[in-house]
């Protein structure tokens, strides 16, 4: 158990580095939202995991496209858009902050 913790600690602290994960989202006005992801050093985010969380539950799962973006239907309730490139490389955007 302890070994696992130590190993995980090592993993976390060492993979934190080099570039920050970033994401911006746009409301397309037609009932869909498009989120575009990336990294601060310009490397591509295609294939990175993306999900929508409503009330703690995952209601949508996808991966960033070749163009590092993903489009989804705008949820009715409050939600979080999550760009997940691994530990320390996650971006959370509140649905309420996504403007038209």
């Amino acid at each position, binding site marked *: 158990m302890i070994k*696992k913790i130590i*190993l*995980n600690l*090592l*993993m976390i*602290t*060492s*993979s*934190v*580095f*080099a*570039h*920050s994960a*970033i*994401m*911006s989202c*746009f409301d*397309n*006005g*037609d009932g869909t939202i498009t989120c*575009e992801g*990336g990294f*601060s*050093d*310009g*490397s*591509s985010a*295609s*294939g*990175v995991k993306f999900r929508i969380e409503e009330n703690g539950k995952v209601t949508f799962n*996808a*991966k*960033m*496209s*070749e*163009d590092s973006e993903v489009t989804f239907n705008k949820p009715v309730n409050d939600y979080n858009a999550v760009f997940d490139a*691994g530990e*320390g490389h996650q971006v959370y955007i509140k649905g309420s*902050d996504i*403007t*038209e």
Partner: protein
Amino acid sequence: MKNLKVALAGQPNCGKSTIFNLVSGIDQHIANYPGVTVDKKTGKFTYENHKIEMVDLPGTYSFSSYSLEERVAKKFIIDDNPDVIVNILDASNIKRNLYLTFQLLEIGMPVVVVLNMMDVAQRRGIDIDSAKISEMLGCPVIEASGTKNIGGEEIMKAIVDITQDEEHYEDFKLNYEELEPHIKTIETKIDSSTSKLNKRWMAIKALEGDTTIIEYLEKDFFDIKTSLKKEEDKFHSLFDKDTVSFLATLRYDSSDIIYHKAIVDKKKGIETLTDKIDKIILNRWLSLPILFAIMFMIYELSIVGGYKLTDYTWPILAAVKNFVIDISPAPYLTNIPIMTDFAIWMINSANALVNYVPIFFILFILIAIMEDVGYMPRMAFILDRIFKKFGLHGQSTLPLVLGGAMVGGCAVPGVMATKGIADDRARMATILTVPYMNCLAKVPFYTLLLAAFFHESMSLMMFFISTITIFTALIVAKLITSTFLKTRETAPFVMELPPYHLPTIKGVILSASQRVWIYIYKVLTIVMAVAIVLFAMLQFPGISNESQIKYDRQLEKGLNTFDKKAQNNKYYKEVDTKDEIASLLNYYDGYKAKRMATTSKEGSLAVDNKYKTLNASYFKFIKPKKDKEAKKINRILRKLAKVRNRILRNVKNEKVENSLLGMAGKSVEPYTEYAGFDWKINVAFLSSFAARESAVATLGSLYENGKVDSQRAEEAMAENSGYTSLHAVAIIIFMLLTPPCIATMIVVKMQTNSYKWMMFAIFFPVFLGVTVSSSVFTLGTIYQWDGVEAMTYFYICITALALVLGMWPSKTINWKGGLKKNQKIYNNYQQNLMKGGN
């Protein structure tokens, strides 16, 4: 306006720098003394109508010529002829500090003595009669406390006064009793010298065997060495003593006299706070855990904390990048002007390096605190025994830790931190070993490979990678010191453990800022130069004519689709020409980039407003809202953007493949295939030499070509490359052993002051890397190991080797003069005396 040149001299740990900071303000300039890697700190300021240039000499225990610092300090006195020497003493340690004071007074220049850290002395119950000391030494004695900002004014006043008082200044003479007649003889001999320096001082120093002074005198008196030997022999035959220990004894005896007359130690023998703390810090059982805890804390704060800081600094860098893009020539559809490409490449390279600055800043602050507090010598004291076995030194701890022990670091500050190591051989070994530690920038690269090939055993592999480096570093250190560095001078481990004291905020921030500035200034400039070269090597000769035609056709197709779909649109007129579409695309790209760079809702709104004012009609295509027609345009615009982006990616990859660098990568393939590397890996390594983090970007984009839409680069690599996990291990091992980046090589050159060693630091690890990874790969192929197995065996071998080397009995240490256990040896003169007759 009088110009005054002031030299600040004192023993290490006397708080000299604090006094320097106290009086000289922040206009400080750090350079090297000519030809050596010793820091020369100069401060310029005005005081009451005088222009003061104050030089902080390196801390020295004595003023002989046996260490580089002493030689440098002495040369400064001889060559630069300061108007006054300010001697800083630790008030709690006056007896030992006076040893240097006497030597400084003898030089014959005006001296102002400053008793620093008076507050500590008072706390320790030490009463000092400064007036008495001043009377006995014949010079002004100022009481001060640098950390408490006390005494600065008085010091400056004393400096100014004493330089105006020169005629009244009396030559300081220490009566050397039996040696006096010999001093007189030499003094007479050099009397005709035109030097401004005090003749008696030079005579004494010459008799001491001071090489700097002897060389200086030899210029005018070619036979000075013979005369010196004659006097030394006479003295020795009469008194059976050698001059060096005789002088030392006399000086300490004189210090003792002053100590007894002017100082009362009320609390003598009682434990000081430092003693109490050391009982814990240096306790047999607690010292190592405490050390690890402190190291870990430094990491958490600097690396993790610093990284969090970059969350706030990166938008600034992104804004700069966007600005650069804005002022560069605009792209036209798929035609990106080379200027723009170049600008983007350069700004990306610069940003990658500048991104580290918050981390370095915090790191340097923490180091400065540790240095000022006095923990560094303790660290060396604890770990010296282990490091000594591998040819290193207790003081190698910090550089190695900075370079990345366990969780990772950066070799650049690591190598820069080797400045303080006294032992020349250990210092060189440390400089050459630090690059083997865990470079953080290599981590994304490992992550890429691990995610692709070692999904289940990721933690285990990461553990191997993080912990193997210290062992490889130690082994390399042992190797280097037993071979290449064998003949280098080593130094005795005679090291003071100074009392703990609180650092000053000003001192810490100054020290950190100065170091960060050196990093930015020196490293950035060279990396930029290399980036330019790399750009050229990756761009030319470019894509073939056939490919150009192919891509143009793809673009035409995309444009036609756009046109067809827009034809019946209300807004068709606004997007019916190629030019308009091109500028609309650029507008769209710009908008997206700026939105990505903002992190707040207000920021997003600001971007929206800006773009609205920029071009209101275009804006509706970006944000159509309820406008159905505009929405249609928006959709086909996005599709066109996709097509264009795909073309750009393909163009880029083809360019790289055809480029000079690509050809270089292909040309070394026959050699690297023993390690399992194909040309793509080679290119990634070559191009990432500028900065390791771009290895991932390059590798990633090389494999993006032809992959399925939503695959991650690593998955693509795993599927398309044809590599096995064994290949991956070979790549990882190569990455582990090769130098981190150009920046590191630059600081290696800075610290070793030689291009020769820099080349060694580049080629030896590459050689090692290729050999070892090839061996592992070849063995693995023969024995059919998979990646994890290969890594495990490698790990076991390395740790075993390190442990064996650690246990191996070490050779006798050698320093100048050699160890002769059973003979009575005084100094060289005595040896010569015994060899032949008189």
